């Protein structure tokens, strides 16, 4: 990781009519790292990403990407950005090779080493055998690799991925991330939006968005360490009753059920979170086993988005 900044956004705001999709976003995204946007649907992830690469004009605020000012230099910027859309957006009735050739022409790549470059991309993304296959007939994982091959063919300095792995199996997802790490090693900055915790965990840096606002930012490990809540795990035979009981208890922010276990988040001010929970459940005569545990990213996510919902307090960890 280098120390230089790939994206510098100040006070970025986007309003659609009366709806504020992104509200006063300040970001500094370092070069040659994977930066993740985590947030529920409608949290403004896609809008933020599109503004950062010049596809959308912000209502207010300024962005500088790779040294280009997005206002006025968006067209030049496009040559240095690779964008992978949420939905497969290459031509399904063209073959793998035809799609890549089309993109090469569109990006004005030199003709001399074109064949070499396409062969290289096909090999790198394990698509050599599919070269003559129509894109529409390929599997989800293959399509995704083709989309990535297309987005990186012109060797962009910034790669933007909008929920890239929503349509692929876990193994393909793992392969996909291996490729991303390799790209980062070669100096590419990667911006990815996701709502999968396991994906978010792999990012070097993470921003959690909720209703258009940045509610937490930092390295995943720091976010977990500095979570603004106590985390308690409850094992019980009657999870529904326990949940109802705890949700009515003062000092408990939220309760989430994971099979027979519950995860409860308590206010930071509570000194003995496990004790509070235990007492509340005993009072309600619910048999349970209660333990304080270390937070996971989902807890961080829930804590961050919950707080914003209740009082609008921000929790800038790290």
């Amino acid at each position, binding site marked *: 990781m280098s120390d230089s900044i790939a994206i510098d956004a100040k006070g970025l705001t986007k309003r659609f009519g009366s709806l504020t999709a992104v509200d006063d976003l300040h970001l500094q995204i370092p070069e040659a790292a994977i930066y993740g946007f985590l947030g529920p649907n409608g949290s403004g992830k896609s809008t933020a990403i599109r503004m950062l*690469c010049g*596809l*959308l*004009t912000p209502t207010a605020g300024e962005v500088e990407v790779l040294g280009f000012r997005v206002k006025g230099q968006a*067209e030049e910027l*496009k*040559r240095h*950005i690779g*964008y992978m*859309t949420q*939905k*497969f*957006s*290459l*031509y*399904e*009735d*063209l073959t793998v090779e*035809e799609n890549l050739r*089309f*993109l090469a*022409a*569109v*990006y*004005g790549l030199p003709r001399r080493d074109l064949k070499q470059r396409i062969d290289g991309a096909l090999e790198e993304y394990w698509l050599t055998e599919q070269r003559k296959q129509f894109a529409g007939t390929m599997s989800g994982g293959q399509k995704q690799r083709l989309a990535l091959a*297309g987005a990186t063919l012109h060797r962009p300095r910034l790669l933007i991925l909008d929920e890239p792995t929503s349509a692929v199996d876990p193994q393909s997802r793992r392969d996909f991330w291996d490729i991303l790490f390799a790209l980062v090693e070669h100096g590419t900055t990667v911006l990815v939006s996701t709502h999968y915790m396991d994906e978010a965990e792999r990012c070097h840096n993470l921003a959690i968005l909720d209703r258009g606002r940045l509610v937490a930012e930092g390295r995943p490990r720091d976010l977990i360490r500095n979570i603004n809540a106590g985390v308690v795990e409850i094992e019980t035979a009657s999870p529904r009753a326990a949940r109802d009981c705890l949700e009515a208890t003062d000092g408990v922010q939220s309760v989430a059920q994971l099979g027979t276990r519950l995860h409860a988040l308590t206010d930071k001010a509570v000194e003995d979170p496990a004790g509070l929970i235990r007492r509340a459940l005993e009072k309600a005569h619910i048999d349970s086993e209660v333990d304080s545990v270390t937070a996971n990213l989902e807890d961080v996510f829930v804590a961050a988005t919950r707080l914003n919902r209740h009082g609008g307090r921000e929790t800038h960890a790290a």
Partner: protein
Amino acid sequence: MLRRLLAIAGKEVRQLKRDRLTFGMIVGVPLLQILLFGYAIDLDVRNVSAAVADHANTSLSRQLVASTEASQVVRITRSAAGPEELEALLDAGEIDVGIYIPHDFERRVMDADRPAGQLLINGSDPTVESIARRLTQMPLPGRAQPPPLFEARTYYNPERRSPVNIVPALIGVILHLTMVLFTAIAIVRERERGNLELLITTPVTSSELMLGKIIPYVIIGLIQVTLILWVSQWLFDVPVRGHVLDLYLASAFFILAALALGLTVSTLAKTQFQAIQLTVFTFLPSILLSGFMFPFEGMPRVAQWIGEAIPLTHFVRLSRGILVRGAELGELHAEIWPMLVFFTVFMIVATLRFSKRLD
């Protein structure tokens, strides 16, 4: 710039080759239309079915009936007892013309002030009506006729063959239908399938995209013109009296106008189905007001103004001029610039609307 344009055009051709339905329409629509219009539509109506009620029943009246049938305008299928039965037959739709010859036919013939007989004409079909009215001009058999006031000489199409009237205009109708439809669908399809979302992240500009999409269809349109000319010459002996090259040039201008309209449609429609609906919507006024179906001169002033704004109107005049009258494009230049204005206006509208939709 040029490379990106060619990349888009080349991709469009590739996709087109694989889209069998569209590819079939390029050839199928012109062939079907020309066969339908060429064979099924004959404006020179013959053998309208008729019935006679002859109350005079003299040799003169029988002669009149015989020469009426000999004119081939009507074919007498029934005889009726009187005018009431003729009316009943008209109502039932069994005949289109009833010929009534009264008792005092011979005496009426002598009297120059009174008509000798009566025609009952089905006015619900304007073509039949105007044809049947020609019978009123028929001379009385065996009677010396005064010389006509005018001698009429019909130029360009003396045999009054329908294909000669219809085919030149039909080229425009076919081009309008296919060109507007293809381009309207082409961009909407790109949006529906999500390709547009990718394209806007690339250095492709909206005008490159628009032009790149248009170029292949200009060529396809000219291929269609060739096909129509060839079939209509081979099957219907439609003449090409002017320069073929002039016709191709005129067609190219018209195709550009139609494509610009198609692109505008595609920026309005959200789905391919809407694009088709909108195309039909633009198609009807063009057909009705262009002078293809109904004579331009007979339309009210406002309709004529609208008609002048429609590219098909000008193409119909150009095409009839070049093919049938043997005119040169230079003589008809007044018909070209309205199409260019139309093209420019709609191209600007489409490009502006398109760039707006990226945001």
